């Protein structure tokens, strides 16, 4: 499996180099907007769209831009893309747009967007950059939704509350799940400290998974490694 294999790019973006749990980039929107599943999903999808478009655009112009001025060019491209996404959300999802508020224009400052532009899109072809944008965006969305689910479940005892913001008024209300009847609410989880505590728990959980996977890989019979080595040779 080479470094720029599509499967490798995808796995890197979603899991191995997850922006939320491993690289810890874009923490400000991650911590601020993960107070419910719907908010997290909305911001995650918007960020994914921005990542996809900015990666593709930067990959397209990577041979025209001199490396000395690449950072200002990245910033301008990303700013244009974010403005387009912001206007689109304002037009088609006005309720969610109001809830997410300042965090939509702030995607422009999300370091994972410019990070992928610099680290990946500027050095790779359009198709690979597009996959990288989607994968990184999916990873960020995963982090936002997991943390949002954790905080919403503990804080309010629901999942997908206010789903009408994202899924419309006909489908939305049926999606909300009430985990516990007559739940008092645990405000701390909704408030900022809950974001930090929750993110810490999720990172710890991911590390446990990875450590277990590593141990299992190490304990695997030597036959597979021989096969892999043969393949590499």
């Amino acid at each position: 499996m080479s470094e720029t294999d599509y499967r490798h790019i995808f796995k890197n973006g979603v899991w191995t180099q997850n922006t939320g749990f491993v690289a810890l980039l874009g923490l400000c929107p991650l911590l601020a907007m993960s107070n419910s599943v719907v908010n997290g999903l909305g911001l995650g999808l918007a960020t994914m769209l921005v990542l996809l478009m900015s990666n593709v655009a930067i990959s397209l112009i990577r041979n025209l831009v001199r490396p000395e001025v690449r950072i200002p060019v990245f910033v301008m491209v990303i700013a244009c893309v974010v403005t387009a996404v912001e206007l689109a959300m304002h037009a088609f999802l006005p309720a969610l747009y109001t809830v997410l508020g300042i965090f939509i224009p702030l995607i422009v400052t999300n370091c994972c967007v410019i990070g992928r532009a610099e680290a990946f899109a500027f050095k790779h072809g359009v198709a690979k950059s597009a996959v990288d944008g989607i994968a990184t965006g999916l990873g960020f969305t995963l982090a936002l939704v997991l943390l949002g689910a954790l905080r919403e479940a503990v804080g309010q005892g629901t999942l997908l509350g206010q789903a009408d913001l994202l899924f419309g008024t006909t489908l939305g209300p049926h999606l909300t799940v009430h985990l516990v009847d007559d739940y008092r609410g645990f405000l701390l989880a909704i408030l900022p400290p809950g974001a930090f505590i929750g993110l810490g728990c999720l990172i710890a959980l991911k590390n446990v998974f990875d450590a277990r996977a590593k141990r299992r890989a190490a304990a695997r019979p030597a036959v597979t490694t021989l096969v892999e080595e043969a393949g590499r040779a």
Partner: protein
Amino acid sequence: MRFRTITSPHILQDTSVGQVMRRVLYAMLPGIAALLWFFGWGVLLNLLLATVVALAVEALLLLARGKPLALYLGDYSAVVTAWLLAVALPPLAPWWLTVIGVLAAIVLAKHLYGGLGYNPFNPAMIGYVVLLISFPREMSSWLVPHGLGQPAALDLLDSARAIFGGVLPAGIAPDALTGATPLDVLRTRLGLGQSVSEVRNSPVFGLVAGHGWEWVALGFLGGGLWLVYTRAADWRIPVGMIGGLVLIATVFYLADPQHYAPPWFHLWSGAAIFGAFFIATDPVTASTTPRGRLLYGAGIGVLVYVIRTFGGYPDGVAFAVLLMNIAAPTIDLYTQPRVFGARRG
């Protein structure tokens, strides 16, 4: 003939962690007695519940972390945390409130940071603040102290039913038992535009500060002075905190006595005395240098006044202590004492 030779130190003192922690527990007894007298059996039940839960959680976490159980359970630090938290809870607080508070204190504030000695924040105050911001309604339903015309004191069984089952005996409404604390009353009435002297006419006030509360503060003052006398607590922290609180309260009181409560009221209200001797003096989270401890205490005193007077909560000891906990390492850095023999300046 050979004489037995002994090296120094020649005066031995048993100052283990367990010894200091046990002294803190003894020193709390007078204040707890006053709380029991004025607020009923719920205080005792809270203490018992918190102690049991704290010891159980501490034991579980020690097992999980592979630490020796007997050594760490025997240092009484979990019991001290449980007691400090329990006396800060409303006496008829539902059982789950105490359990969540103790969990936050022991798991979040103590063991996630590495256990006793490594925690940057006072565990009991973390537990208290978690509860205060998560469950404002439950945390603000303090009972009316004994002697202010509440129906009849609940006996032990009724208190247990109220705490564990959430049911009060027939004919007693929750509103009849609970009431605003003196600091609540001061805050609300001042907000309504009344003057301090008008507010003082309210029946919740006693000789100096709140009826009942002033005796609780006196109990904790007695225990606290004994702690300082036995050197279990450094005198500089309570002196710094009381000094800071009284100083800023006096300045505001002299400037406008109709809008700012007198310094003696602030000193004897809420958790000021309790915080000065029992919370701020936690040797792990406080400043460690002599000058630093005075500064650390004074910072807490000033912050308590600022939060009470201009902040969103009626009392601010917990927040003030946590804020100064963050500042303690920096204070230590700038207040290193001069090494003997080293040049000045």
